[in-house]
């Protein structure tokens, strides 16, 4: 059964892909390899995983504003997430998503972090909803 969750559009567009969930915030500068899209910070729970093509679900960004450029570089290298879902977004991820044309939504409940990795998730930022299997 499909579940539709309401959310707020931050960066427009529609995309789907397998969920990749992080309960920890992500600092794109330093935590993510901008060439491969892999999480390279050994202290991060997603260490070694690739963001490429995933619907990345995480609370929000943190760290340097240069992180916006890292998201852009990921997109250019074909290593970016297909879409991103935040609990509450902040300027680093918001600006990164906008300049990279990656759909980004936020204002969803923390239950979204319960979604299992690999489950297909569809983000429609323009209509303001996320669709996932129950």
């Amino acid at each position: 059964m499909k579940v539709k969750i309401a959310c707020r559009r931050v960066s427009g567009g529609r995309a789907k892909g397998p969920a990749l969930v992080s309960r920890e915030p992500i600092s794109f500068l330093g935590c993510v390899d901008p060439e491969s899209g892999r999480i390279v910070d050994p202290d991060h729970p997603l260490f070694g995983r690739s963001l490429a093509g995933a619907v990345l679900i995480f609370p929000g960004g943190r760290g340097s504003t240069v992180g916006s450029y890292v998201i852009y570089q990921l997109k250019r290298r074909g290593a970016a997430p297909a879409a991103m879902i935040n609990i509450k977004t902040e300027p680093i991820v918001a600006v990164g998503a906008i300049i990279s044309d990656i759909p980004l939504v936020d204002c969803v409940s923390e239950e979204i972090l319960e979604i299992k990795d690999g489950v297909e998730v569809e983000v429609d930022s323009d209509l303001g909803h996320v669709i996932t299997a129950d």
Partner: protein
Amino acid sequence: MEILAALGDIFGAERLIPIKSVQIAGVSFKNIGEAGLEWISEMEGNVAVKSVLNPAGMDLLRWREMGISEEFASRQLAVVEAYRKLGISTDCTCTPYQIHPDMARRGDHLAWSESSAVAYANSVIGARTNREGGPSALAAALVGKTPYYGYHLDENRAPTLGVRVECDLAGSDYGALGHIVGKVVGGGVPLFRLPGRPTQEELKALGAAMAASGSVALFYVEGLISPPADSGENEERMTIEMDEIRDVYRMHSGEGSELVALGCPHCSVPELEAIAGQLRGREVEKELWICTARAIAKSRPDLVESIERSGAKVICDTCMVVSPASERYRKIMVNSGKALNYIPGLCGVMAGFGSTEECLRAATGRD
């Protein structure tokens, strides 16, 4: 425009407001890398208001003397050129207010990025700006507006912590004070009660240090700009005594430094005058950098010549924090609370802290 609208939504801004000027971070190729260069190069258009750049990763003319590689230099020059094409002034400085006083007057709304310049603009000039990221500052420059939230609004400009300073301070002591208070106040707004009246340079050092050890964007000093009328009495208080200031020096000895670097934030003319005066008749035994804006150096070639006669280098457009040239040293001695905070993390180099005089003594090996 989409960037500004999204930021406005995130922070609940009702609207965008016109701004007087923009100062854009994200210039040093060391920090923004290929990705940043690609994005900036693809931007089109012309800035709507006076806009200047933060320091680059090298002196744009004398980079070879700094030991910068050809490869880095070509990428760095490409970054600056990409910004220039958008109509942005290529003064690469963290202290635009020292060379363009018209960029920020009391009450002006701005979109500045460099954290020490933001602290100075809000606190010493009495203008209003949030701490912008590189892309949001560039977007504001092209549109001439910024979302109306945060430090643009009176309600967010009330002091959150009273700081009573019980001892007389001078020069780099203000950097030490900022280093201590920034850690305590975090992103809050301190209100200082000081026994003396600090100079512009001392206020610059204080704000820069607090913006680095905390994320202070606004502070007050009793007797200068007053907080908004309805701010009320702030409850929290702390007191600073001379022992705590001395501890900052003690815990960061300059011993064993291979490079001595002054000018974080960039030196003003009075600071260059003081340094030139103290270096007169002396010769450096260690590498000594004096960092400033090119426009400041150009305005006083006599001071540059006098300083360089000692063997020191007057370096423009960059600084010890954002240039990869710092990374080849094991330890750098500074008179700046901000540089003290950033050098270990951003350069992977140890940092020592001393007064301007102690720094110059360390560089010239003369007691």
